[in-house]
């Protein structure tokens, strides 16, 4: 996938005027948010349930190295093969050779964000192996060659007419219809046929249970189950932070994941693989490979502050509640991960310099933090990234700010440090503003603040500041005791 994080403003300005996307964003996220609240109510103690899931994620991240070792050991004991990839390239090489060894000319895929991250589909296509996305949303996004609009619903913004045209053009459907049930049925027949002939199926992983060596997938379409039960060879790809200590932990996280994601108590399908098909079993793959892709996670893990990012369970609740995401949608974020979860993850994976807008385009309203079942403090991370960027941090490739901005903050800090300088600046500012003001209001920010004044005014500095009013009120007798 082409990384376009640098084009945030260009894409966002375009998307914010996209009437269809806006209407959709104004409608669906509030409905999901409402359903989430209702379904959270089915817990005897919703706050307690939330606190527990946050604690589980905290513990999982704190014990990550140990849990991964335990997971590998137990999964291997069950007959699965665990393979480790340091970066995207290694991961792609491993997966490609597994597929090539089995002489597969196409593979089916369940929805997996990490394969988007490492650009697996492009690598497969280059090696003449056709990747077929089997999640309906991913399938549509793949056919349209578009990045995911939402991490949970990748093509959820695409109008039904566009899907009809696409299906007709691609021969997926013969009848001209916009009936969603008919469209779904056509896609189903098309994909079902692929499943009948697959050698290798690829999936992501929602949770990996350390104590049992089990991988868990949560889905609503049943396509992941097909990907796991139809092929001879199953390759499941995950990042290290998917691991959780116990099955009980995993089950509680599944409750929170489904509630936060789609407002369901549990998704239609939850599948677990504890090793490949056993001798006495009738279903399942003959071989199971679990590829654990680090791709920058160890680096993130080193720093206790950035480590917090690894708590994320990809539920997407933060997207649905974010006042910025719900205005601009998923495209401006320029990569696999969008919304607040993408804003905290992408800068660490891609570097702070080329993701400037991701950790700055935020009013720090904190609604993502409030809704997060994993206990992530997104605004605190944004502040941390901004500070790393100002410092020109080497590890995450900060770039230092322009000298004008640094100078401005230096001067500001001098004024803050001295009452006299502060007052002098205000007096000067007042005189300058008066020249441009009308009835106490400014309507033009000149070169200094061009953005604010596009749709808003701002009052001038008062003729008397509070300090001056107070001095008048008290005869200047109040100050330090």
């Amino acid at each position: 996938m082409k990384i376009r994080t640098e084009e945030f403003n260009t894409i966002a300005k375009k998307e914010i005027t996209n009437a269809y996307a806006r209407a959709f964003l104004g409608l669906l996220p509030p409905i999901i948010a409402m359903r989430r609240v209702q379904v959270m109510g089915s817990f005897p103690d919703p706050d307690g349930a939330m606190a527990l899931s946050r604690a589980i994620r905290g513990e999982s991240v704190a014990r990550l190295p140990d849990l991964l070792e335990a997971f590998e050991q137990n999964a291997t004991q069950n007959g699965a093969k665990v393979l480790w990839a340091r970066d995207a390239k290694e991961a792609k090489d491993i997966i490609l050779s597994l597929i090539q060894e089995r002489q597969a000319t196409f593979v089916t895929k369940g929805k997996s964000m990490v394969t988007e991250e490492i650009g697996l589909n492009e690598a497969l296509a280059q090696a003449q192996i056709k990747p077929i996305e089997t999640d309906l949303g991913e399938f549509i996004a793949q056919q349209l060659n578009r990045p995911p609009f939402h991490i949970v619903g990748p093509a959820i913004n695409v109008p039904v007419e566009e899907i009809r045209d696409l299906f007709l053009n691609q021969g997926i459907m013969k009848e001209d219809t916009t009936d969603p049930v008919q469209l779904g049925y056509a896609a189903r027949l098309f994909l079902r046929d692929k499943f009948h002939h697959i050698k290798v199926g690829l999936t992501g992983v929602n949770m990996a249970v350390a104590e049992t060596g089990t991988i868990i997938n949560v889905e609503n379409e049943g396509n992941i189950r097909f990907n796991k039960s139809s092929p001879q060879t199953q390759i499941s790809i995950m990042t290290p932070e998917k691991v959780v200590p116990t099955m009980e932990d995993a089950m509680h996280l599944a409750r929170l994941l489904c509630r936060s994601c789609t407002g369901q108590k549990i998704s239609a399908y939850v599948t677990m693989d504890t090793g490949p098909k056993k001798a006495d079993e009738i279903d399942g793959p003959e071989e199971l490979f679990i590829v654990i892709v680090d791709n920058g996670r160890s680096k993130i893990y080193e720093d206790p502050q950035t480590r917090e990012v690894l708590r994320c369970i990809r539920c997407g609740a933060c997207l649905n509640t974010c006042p910025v995401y719900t205005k601009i949608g998923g495209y401006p974020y320029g990569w696999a991960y969008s919304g607040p979860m993408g804003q905290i993850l992408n800068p660490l994976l891609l570097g702070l310099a080329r993701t400037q807008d991701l950790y700055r385009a935020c009013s720090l309203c904190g609604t993502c933090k409030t809704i997060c079942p994993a206990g992530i403090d997104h605004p605190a991370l944004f502040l941390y990234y901004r500070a790393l960027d100002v410092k020109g941090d080497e590890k995450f490739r900060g770039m230092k700010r322009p000298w004008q901005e640094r100078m401005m903050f230096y001067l500001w800090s001098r004024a803050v440090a001295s009452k006299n300088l502060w007052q002098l600046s205000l007096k000067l500012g007042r005189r300058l503003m008066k020249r441009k003001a009308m009835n106490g209001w400014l309507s033009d920010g000149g070169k200094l603040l061009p953005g604010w004044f596009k749709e808003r005014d701002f009052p001038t500095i008062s003729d008397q500041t509070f300090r001056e009013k107070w001095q008048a009120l008290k005869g200047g007798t109040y100050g330090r005791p």
Partner: protein
Amino acid sequence: MSKVSLFIPCLVDTFVPSIGLATYTILNRLGIETVYREEQTCCGQPALNAGYRHHATEAARRFISIFGDDEVIISPAGSCVYMVKRHYPDLLREDPHWYPRAIDLATRIYELSQYLVDVLGVTDVGARYEGKITYHESCHILRGLGISQQPKKLLSAISGAEVVPLFAAEMCCGFGGEFAERYHYISEEMVKDKVNNFVASGADVLVTCEPGCYLNIKGYLHRQKIEKAVVHLAHLLAGPEFLRGENEN
């Protein structure tokens, strides 16, 4: 009773001093003596938000040396209180001299409505207003400080006033400091939503406890020539003379 110290943040001091005066008036009416430390300037939030932590830390130390001995500090600005309560200890975590002082100060600073309702136990300050009012839940007040019931209790006790619900009251108005400048095209949509919901609520005034939201919403109403009023909670509680002024001069 000991005096309470007024923390009047820079936006209030500079652009909306009436919020400061209204705060003083309310406390005065309740018989509470106030002091104003004239050395105070800015709490450092703009520097923190922009990533200039060293400058924010300097501001934090200065703030603590000015207010550090005051028993109770009150401010009519939630996000500045949040800065002192939540971020000062964070900024000074590595500093054995300043960290304990930051933690200690954090327990003595209150947002205005929080002080009135939670500490003094007062909900009726004797205010009157004839009309419908609605309340905007500012981000740092609601999600930062966990304050929501306190201002609503104060509003419900205003005689003559009818409090009406605001759709998506807890949604950000789009201020966010430099966010409103750098990403104005997103911020504008957010403030537009807020104002549309305000108009649809049928309220005559929109009340906030946050000077940032106040300036943002008011600046939008003024430019768009929408004949609706936004006021700070202190304006409404202090009395009719604080509701009249179109500007602060």
